């Protein structure tokens, strides 16, 4: 009702303004005519002259005019020296001549009788803008809100989307926002810079005291920082986030580094996200609202290092669920929003470089590089996988040609087609400093005079090259030896390095068109990453521990994985408002291609010869080796194409004094994945006379002709090593949701979602000979799930929210999670495979109290409880009982997770009014406490009387922690944000984390607590156009340390010797001084054996110092 009144008033004012303006113009025109008519002789328009300006300075032209008329000119020498004047018509009036010169050269002239003075036109400064959005506490736009600029008394109103844009001369302003029946808000110190936009989003609160006007005053910075909190405060679900401004205060280069700064979020290897201590596979990643594909073939996970922070506008992690959220999660929904249509034009360029204390300038190892590695493209030297390779599974090189189906000459020809081994073998390079560049451009065009219809775009191109050396100080995982043979032998350790060479391109083009009621946006992101991880670990294996004879020297395992990843997302979305109805839709296409080209695994064995100790070298596999062997070159191509579409309609209506919204919608997500692998073991016949010990691996290709026993090294692909996986899935859903604002301080949102999922495996080949006969067993109970959700927000006093929510959600298996593909993972030191995964259904309960004491300030405490039905976890199993085992993904029976979250952000201005700098200082921190318990189960098979196979489970009596659990997480930071100088110190701590779980404690691997401190100094130069940042990350060089409770730390309980099928807890207990936590232990003087936890992996990443410059044109 009040909107239409307001509009009528505006229309009336507008009409009156136009009428007044017309009257004024007419009056002035007639006055001029009356005044000019009596002074004809001094009328410049009456004097016609011809003038020649070619090659003359202004003073010469005017001297000529003086000479040929009665006028005299007054001007400065500077103006007189102006040249290069060209007139369109050479015989015109004196007025026209002077007007054209004045226009061309930015001069003005004034006439006093016959005297004409020329002076420079004062150049007015270009105006800047203040723009933003005015919303209510629910995030709904407030159209027609009044924005008054106190200094100029100018008043503008927000458009129907709540947006406003005010053009102002540079300066500092105070803005007052008001809206009928809402509390007004005054923001002081809003700075407007020439030709720049100052963003300012404002949330107005309902005025509970009726019509009494209340103005809340806050500073600009507080209001700006508050915008993200406003979103958090006003959404119906629980969320935490980080804005571009906050990201800018960290040294983070990609989103993977940033996520851990959000409350309740931690990361694994700065790539994978753990929310509330719940591992990556229970979290969903959205880019501009659309799902992201899994970047790890064997894990349901998106690696966030793919997205540079420079392209990100904000990251919000939703932790509770409403029915309109199309994708199920249990930990968090990570929503990344890239930069959108700007409010004003901009062009910025930035460049930076960084130095790592254990990498830069030091040896950097890797296999042969391509010419274009720095540009992120392969130059063809890694292309060794032609089509139509023979399956040599039946080939025996010891037999004659007559006895083999495929002849030696055919294999020799195939070897030639595959190509030589020149690229193989370790090289030493020098590590260079990392470098990054970015060019960003934003343009906006108004399509009408009132700026209600606009079109605009943001484009950004970024490049980054980083080189990192992770120093592995200890590796005792998987196949590697688990303890030193002699406790006092300091040389019996397994060590190595992981060298990471990464080139990343990011191209973003987002555009939008909007009118008063409609908005259509397009988001387009392309990232290309060349990521080459080369791991080189040297040590003794569990199978062959150190001794003084054949195992005197360690062997080396090399793994080179050059991976080219292309991620392309194109999305178009729209919002349309028809009075009380709001329609929203989106359609997105996301494709990911991950090409691991010429990935090589090789082993160097060492022995002692007379003049080399050790004498190391590569050796081909035995032709009788049934697997990949020790040396193989592989190609893995993973392609995933996703299409998703959403449509929703919301209707706002009132019942009595209550505001309500009914929302309904549908969503559709189709995924298709192809995975092809080609593994080329390099083998040699036992009859070979090739002097392999003295031939460098780079020259093996010269001995692949297969013409005789001196040339019989060959590529040995078999059926299982040239194979594929293909699957598709469909996920569709529909929802209905009600949003009631029953009282001014009570909001209830509830709904029901129906969710359908179907996964079809089209081809599912095994990648290992021993798995060819294996079968995956999993039980997907049903296709449809109905999932209710409810959220209640109660605001008992101003700025305080009390929230409670419940939701059921379903986490679906990833496309590859039911693949029979398995591969050695050098990080785990063992193979990773699937055991069959089905959907997990989660009941989520949340409660939270939030207090927003001031703009940009927050104090909150939250509690959550989750029940997982059939959670999927990564297990280490040792079914062959060889001490090495492998890692599988499989469903457990159930899990319960509960925890507390606390967050604080407070400005220190309250300490003293006399210390102005304190108002620029913020303290922030968050704390998450979490505990989980899981009932594990073990799959068993039996044959029924009718001779069919049947499966059943053995359930574990003793609960344990959920895979990925981090029981304690906290962040603390202090920030000073001055006009020019910025200082930021952040501290991040993560407690014990369950890295890989297992059926008994001796198989479970934990990550030890880790604390990281980062600092940043920034300074603005050249009136704020240039900014430089010095970042220092990981100041303590904190290592990533993992451990397993070693068998030496526990002992068998008396009386259990003859008991079978006992669980670990019934059979064993920890020795005195040992527990589930890490204890380094001691060396037993009697046995000279180590008694203590196995330090399965310790990795140092060094300290990184980076310097960057950015300039805004």
């Amino acid at each position: 009702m009040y909107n239409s009144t307001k509009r009528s008033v505006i229309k009336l004012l507008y009409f009156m303004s136009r009428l007044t303006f017309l009257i004024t113009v007419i009056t002035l025109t007639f006055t001029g005519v009356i005044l000019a008519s009596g002074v004809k002789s001094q009328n410049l328009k009456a004097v016609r002259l011809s003038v020649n300006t070619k090659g003359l300075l202004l003073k010469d032209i005017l001297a000529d005019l003086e000479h040929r008329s009665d006028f005299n000119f007054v001007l400065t020498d500077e103006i007189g020296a102006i040249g290069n004047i060209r007139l369109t018509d050479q015989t015109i009036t004196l007025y026209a001549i002077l007007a054209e010169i004045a226009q061309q050269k930015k001069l003005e002239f004034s006439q006093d009788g016959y005297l004409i003075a020329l002076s420079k036109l004062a150049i007015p400064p270009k105006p800047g803008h203040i723009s933003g959005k005015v919303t209510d506490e629910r995030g709904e736009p407030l159209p027609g809100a009044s924005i008054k600029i106190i200094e100029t008394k100018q008043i503008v109103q927000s458009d129907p989307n709540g947006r406003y844009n005010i053009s102002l001369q540079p300066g500092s302003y105070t803005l007052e926002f008001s809206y009928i029946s809402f509390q007004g808000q005054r923001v002081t110190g809003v700075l407007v810079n020439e030709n720049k936009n100052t963003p300012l989003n404002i949330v107005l609160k309902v005025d509970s005291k009726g019509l009494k006007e209340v103005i809340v005053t806050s500073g600009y910075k507080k209001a700006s920082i508050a915008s993200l909190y406003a979103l958090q405060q006003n959404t119906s679900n629980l969320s935490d986030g980080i804005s571009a401004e906050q990201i800018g205060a960290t040294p983070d280069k990609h989103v993977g580094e940033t996520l851990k700064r959000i409350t309740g979020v931690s990361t694994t290897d700065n790539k994978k996200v753990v929310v509330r201590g719940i591992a990556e596979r229970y979290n969903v990643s959205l880019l501009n609202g659309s799902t992201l594909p899994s970047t790890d073939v064997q894990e349901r996970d998106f690696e966030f290092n793919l997205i540079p922070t420079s392209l990100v506008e904000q990251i919000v992690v939703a932790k509770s669920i409403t029915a309109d959220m199309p994708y199920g999660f249990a930990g968090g929904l990570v929503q990344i929003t890239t930069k959108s249509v700007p409010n004003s034009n901009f062009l910025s360029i930035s460049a930076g470089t960084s130095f790592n204390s254990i990498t830069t300038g030091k040896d950097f190892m890797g296999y042969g590089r391509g010419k274009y590695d720095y540009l992120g493209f392969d130059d063809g030297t890694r292309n060794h996988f032609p089509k139509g390779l023979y399956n040599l599974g039946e080939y025996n090189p010891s037999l004659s040609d007559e006895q083999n189906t495929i002849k030696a000459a055919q294999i020799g020809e195939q070897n030639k087609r595959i190509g030589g081994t020149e690229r193989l073998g370790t090289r030493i390079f020098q590590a260079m400093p990392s470098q990054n560049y970015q060019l960003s451009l934003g343009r906006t065009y108004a399509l009408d005079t009132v700026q209600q219809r606009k079109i605009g775009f943001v484009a950004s191109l970024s490049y980054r090259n980083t080189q990192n050396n992770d120093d592995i100080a200890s590796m005792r995982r998987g196949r590697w030896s688990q303890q030193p043979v002699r406790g006092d032998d300091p040389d019996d350790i397994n060590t190595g390095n992981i060298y990471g060479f990464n080139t990343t391109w990011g191209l973003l083009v987002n555009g939008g068109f909007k009118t008063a009621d409609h908005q259509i946006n397009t988001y387009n992101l392309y990232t290309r990453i060349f990521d080459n991880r080369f791991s080189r670990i040297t040590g003794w294996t569990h199978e062959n521990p150190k001794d003084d004879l054949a195992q005197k020297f360690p062997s080396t395992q090399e793994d080179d994985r050059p991976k080219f990843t292309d991620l392309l997302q194109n999305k178009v979305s729209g919002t349309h408002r028809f009075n009380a109805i709001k329609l929203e839709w989106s359609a997105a296409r996301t494709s990911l291609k991950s090409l691991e080209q010429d990935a090589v695994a090789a082993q160097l064995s060492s022995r002692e010869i007379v003049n080399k100790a050790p004498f190391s070298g590569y050796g081909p596999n035995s032709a009788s080796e049934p697997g990949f062997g020790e040396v193989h070159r592989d190609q893995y191509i993973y392609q995933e194409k996703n299409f998703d579409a959403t449509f929703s309609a919301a209707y706002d209506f009132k019942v009595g004094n209550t505001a309500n919204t009914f929302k309904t919608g549908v969503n559709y997500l189709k995924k298709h994945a192809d995975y092809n692998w080609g593994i080329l073991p390099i083998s040699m016949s036992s009859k070979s006379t090739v002097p392999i010990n003295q031939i460098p691996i780079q020259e093996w290709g010269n001995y692949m002709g297969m013409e005789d026993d001196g040339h019989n090294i060959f590529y040995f692909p078999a059926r299982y090593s040239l194979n594929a996986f293909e699957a598709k899935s469909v996920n569709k859903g529909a929802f209905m949701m009600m949003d009631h604002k029953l009282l001014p301080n009570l909001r209830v949102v509830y709904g029901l979602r129906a969710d359908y999922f179907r996964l079809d495996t089209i081809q599912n080949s095994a990648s290992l000979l021993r798995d060819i006969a294996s079968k995956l067993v999993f039980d997907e109970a049903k296709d449809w799930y109905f999932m209710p959700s409810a959220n209640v927000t109660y605001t008992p006093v101003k700025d305080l929210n009390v929230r409670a929510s419940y939701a059921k959600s379903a986490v679906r298996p990833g496309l590859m999670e039911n693949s029979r593909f398995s591969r050695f993972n050098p990080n785990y030191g063992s193979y990773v495979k699937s055991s069959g995964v089905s959907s997990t259904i989660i009941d989520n309960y949340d409660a939270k109290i939030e207090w927003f004491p001031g703009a940009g300030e927050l104090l909150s405490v939250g509690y959550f409880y989750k029940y997982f039905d059939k959670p999927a976890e990564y297990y280490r199993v040792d079914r062959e009982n060889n001490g090495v085992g492998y890692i599988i993904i499989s469903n457990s029976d159930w899990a319960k997770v509960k925890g507390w979250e606390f967050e604080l952000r407070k400005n220190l201005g309250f300490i003293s009014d006399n210390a102005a700098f304190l108002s620029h200082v913020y303290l922030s921190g968050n704390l998450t406490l979490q505990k989980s318990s899981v009932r594990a189960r073990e799959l068993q098979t039996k044959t029924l009387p009718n001779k069919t196979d049947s499966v059943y489970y053995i359930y574990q009596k003793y609960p344990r922690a959920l895979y990925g659990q981090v029981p304690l997480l906290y962040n603390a930071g202090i920030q000073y944000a001055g006009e020019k100088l910025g200082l930021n110190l952040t501290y991040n701590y993560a407690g014990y984390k369950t890295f890989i779980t297992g059926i008994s404690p001796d198989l479970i691997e934990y990550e030890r607590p880790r604390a990281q401190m980062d600092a940043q100094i920034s300074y603005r130069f050249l009136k704020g156009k240039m900014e430089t940042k010095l970042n220092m990350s990981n100041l303590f060089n904190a290592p990533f340390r993992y451990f397993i409770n070693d068998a030496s730390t526990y002992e068998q309980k008396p009386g259990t010797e003859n008991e079978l099928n006992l669980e670990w807890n019934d059979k064993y207990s920890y020795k005195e001084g040992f527990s589930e936590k890490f204890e380094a232990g001691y060396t037993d003087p009697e046995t000279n054996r180590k008694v203590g936890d196995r330090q399965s992996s310790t990795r140092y990443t060094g300290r990184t110092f980076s310097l960057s410059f950015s300039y805004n044109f």
Partner: protein
Amino acid sequence: MKTIKITYILAFVSILIFSACEKEGTVLLPKIKALKPFEMSGYVLGDTIEQYFDGVKVRDYYGWVTLGSVAPSIAFENEVTTMEFRKKSTGQKIYEQKFKITDENNVVPKFYFDGTTLSPRYDYPVAQGKDYLINFYYDAPKGSAGIDLSIDVLEYYYDVDNNLVVVKTTSFPLASNIEIGKWTDFIKITPPAPVALTQPGTDLYPVVTMRNSKTKEYLIANDRDRSTLQIEIPDEFTSSGKVQSIHLANKTENKINYMQVNNLVQFFP
């Protein structure tokens, strides 16, 4: 003006990118031109010998020089490889030999190093008649006492559990206070005098035992059985003589003390 700035920036960026490019690194494993057979043996006493190849130390030798678990091969990265022996205490070069890639066999002549001089043989006297001549060189950790040797004639029997039961020991001194780090003079071993049995069902067995010359305890853990020395001693039936040059090395490995015994006459027949 903007154009110029952008040009400068692009030029700077290009320089950084292309200056960072490095396609060919240095191959980690050096190329081996040939791998040839190699032979070497000798004996070192008095000082440790350090073995160098092309200026790089590969290993130390003391006592019996043998390739053992070392593969009998030499790798050629160049046409010639030079081997040196250096005296560990002084670093003094005591021997040098060049090996050529064209040689099929690479042999270091058998050598004996006495701590001062490297010679192609170890000299010892020839046994006359039925004489048993023996000398000793004892190595033990610095500060250890010397050792006494004796021939112990054990009168023994086996009990029902097949355990050895010694009922009487009769000792005949062989050598006393053998000092660390120098050869003793050759001594003549005579067969132990006849010993009468004291019990029925027993038998006699002679062993050479080592004792700490100060404490007179058995040398190894004061255990007679672990402190016996495997050398040949004559008996009443011996018809020909023998010479033995015994190097005794008292060692402790993995916290276990033992005596390593080598007879140099066997290495230099």
